[in-house]
């Protein structure tokens, strides 16, 4: 018998539902946040016994809340326990997204259709031959492959979570609401920590199913008047609880107004980063129109403050995140880190590398317009020409200003009138029309 024996680890049997081992360390068990690209940034997923903090300082959007909803939906979908702390926990769960009803493969196709529509155009364009061999420029990680399906479900933002699922989860104890109400005496941070602790000790130890603690808006009015010290104390105590209960993980969002240094004094964000395992800021463009015009394809930037590293010196994300792009040159740890951004499409939220849009910005330029666009153009043109011609006649009667323009347009208009049938058949020539009702617009 050989002295080298292969270690066989029965992963499937021992691991709780919806989790897997971290690629970095066998000691770390990770679970999904519900967003595949966010999992990638975290280095595979959120490790159990760790906390994730999402800061969304923009009060006009709710991207932080959206990530929390993904977190809750993923927990319910893979049969984990979810503990929700909010003023209106019931309403929050009912607004969560869910998986589309049809076959998962089919829905996936439908979901990507809008992406495909955008990219299919690029496929037909012939670029310089030397780029042909290169693989397609990818900005994000592909969502669920079939093996990932159990680990990270594919959610659809157009679907709501069915009431029956919430009811079942509430009955089986998989979903727990801890209501926060500042008017009641048990809602100061100390008491809330006590309540979480009591819950963890009663139900947490016996069960081997992971528990997700979700706090969608810490510091919102329901929490009463919190000081920075109280918030930090709360996060510190929560982190300590998580360390004691290794099958628990937590995801927090702060209320928008306390997500910036302005509220907590300078260094506030860094302090928050020290008291959570992973801390991100989703700074949306909605407050800043100039940024929104520079990056029309994205809805905001993602800043990383801290990354979870429960059992290693370096966060696993440095090595395993494809989006951050540090792993390329392995020995020295890569050159630079990618700038990351996020966008929220009709059906899902995606984190991806920040890039300029086609042609460096303002809308995409199409060299060959699609067929229905041409038909539309023709219709428009013939109509416009008729219109112009009429106007021309009227103008010719009354005014003798702008003589050359009138002549030119007039000739055009006559031609359009006479050969309107021809235009519909063949591709229209490039024409210049002057429209008096929209004076700044030239139609090429």
């Amino acid at each position, binding site marked *: 018998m050989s002295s080298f024996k292969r270690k066989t680890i029965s992963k499937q049997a021992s691991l709780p539902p919806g989790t897997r081992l971290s690629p970095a360390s066998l000691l770390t068990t990770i679970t999904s946040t519900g967003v595949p690209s966010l999992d990638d940034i975290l280095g595979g997923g959120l490790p159990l016994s760790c906390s994730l903090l999402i800061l969304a300082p923009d009060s006009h959007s709710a991207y932080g809340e959206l990530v929390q909803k993904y977190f809750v939906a993923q927990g319910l979908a893979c049969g984990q326990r979810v503990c929700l702390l909010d003023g209106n926990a019931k309403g929050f769960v009912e607004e969560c997204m869910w998986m589309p009803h049809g076959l998962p493969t089919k829905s996936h196709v439908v979901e990507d259709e809008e992406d495909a529509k955008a990219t299919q155009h690029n496929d037909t364009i012939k670029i310089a031959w030397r780029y042909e061999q290169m693989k397609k420029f990818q900005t994000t990680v592909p969502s669920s492959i079939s093996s990932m399906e159990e680990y990270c479900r594919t959610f659809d933002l157009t679907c709501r979570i069915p009431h029956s699922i919430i009811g079942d989860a509430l009955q089986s104890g998989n979903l727990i609401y801890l209501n926060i109400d500042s008017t009641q005496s048990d809602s100061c941070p100390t008491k809330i920590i006590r309540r979480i602790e009591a819950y963890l000790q009663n139900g947490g130890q016996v069960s081997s199913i992971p528990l997700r603690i979700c706090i969608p808006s810490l510091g919102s009015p329901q929490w009463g008047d919190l000081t*920075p010290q109280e918030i930090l104390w709360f996060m510190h*105590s929560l982190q300590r609880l998580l360390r004691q209960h290794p099958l628990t993980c937590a995801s927090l969002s702060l209320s928008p107004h306390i997500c910036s240094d302005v509220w907590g004094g*300078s260094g506030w964000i860094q302090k928050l980063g020290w008291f959570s395992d992973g801390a991100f800021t989703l700074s949306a463009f909605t407050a800043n129109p100039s940024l929104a015009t520079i990056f029309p394809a994205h809805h905001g930037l993602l800043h990383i403050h801290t990354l979870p590293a429960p059992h290693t010196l370096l966060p696993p994300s440095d090595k395993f995140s494809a989006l951050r792009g540090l792993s390329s040159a392995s*020995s020295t*740890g890569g050159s630079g880190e990618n700038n990351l951004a996020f966008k929220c499409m009709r059906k899902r939220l995606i984190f991806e590398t920040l890039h300029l849009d086609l042609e460096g910005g303002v809308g995409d330029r199409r060299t060959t317009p699609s067929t229905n666009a041409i038909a539309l153009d023709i219709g428009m043109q013939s109509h416009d020409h008729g219109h112009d011609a009429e106007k021309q006649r009227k103008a010719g009667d009354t005014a003798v200003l702008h003589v050359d323009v009138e002549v030119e347009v007039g000739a055009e208009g006559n031609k359009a009138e006479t050969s309107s049938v021809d235009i519909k058949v063949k591709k229209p020539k490039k024409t210049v029309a002057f429209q008096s009702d929209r004076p700044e617009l030239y139609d090429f």
Partner: protein
Amino acid sequence: MTRWKTIAAKSNLNLATHLTSNSLVFVDVSAAFDTGLDSKQPALRSIYEMTSAELTGQQEGASMMVILDDISSLEWTGVSLLDLIRFIRALRSLCLKSNASLIIRHHVVTPTEPDDLLRQLLQICTYHMDVQPLSSGRSGAVSGEIALHAGPSVDDPDFPLIPRSAAVQYRLTDTGAVFFGRGTGGGVL
């Protein structure tokens, strides 16, 4: 604690045996503050008493070390500055008496304007080690740089000091940190 254990295991150190043989004692500071935000003073006192009991319990002549990791979280979670300064002073005199060295970790979140706690710490320290990220931003080959300064009470330091202008650079790896002089890192040469 698990993080400490696994990281120590990477450098062939089994913390569990040290914990059982009492050569490493873990004083849980945050447990003392578990009672909430009020009554901070007794909590600090109880930590001090636990530490002093541990220090006096050791046999005579053994070299000892107290690590406080980290003091800024105490400050941020609402311990008043005055209480903290008193606590540090008491801890320092305790360590002086029992011939133990004291290491305090403090996070500086506002490097441009030092906070009051840092000023106090600088006053009472013998040596002041200053770990910073590179000022030029993130690098794959260098995680940061370390400088060692003498405190105000030292006029003839036992070690060669490391000025900021010739700081030692380091890089974190999976197994531990690698230290090297400026410009001699793996990515540079």
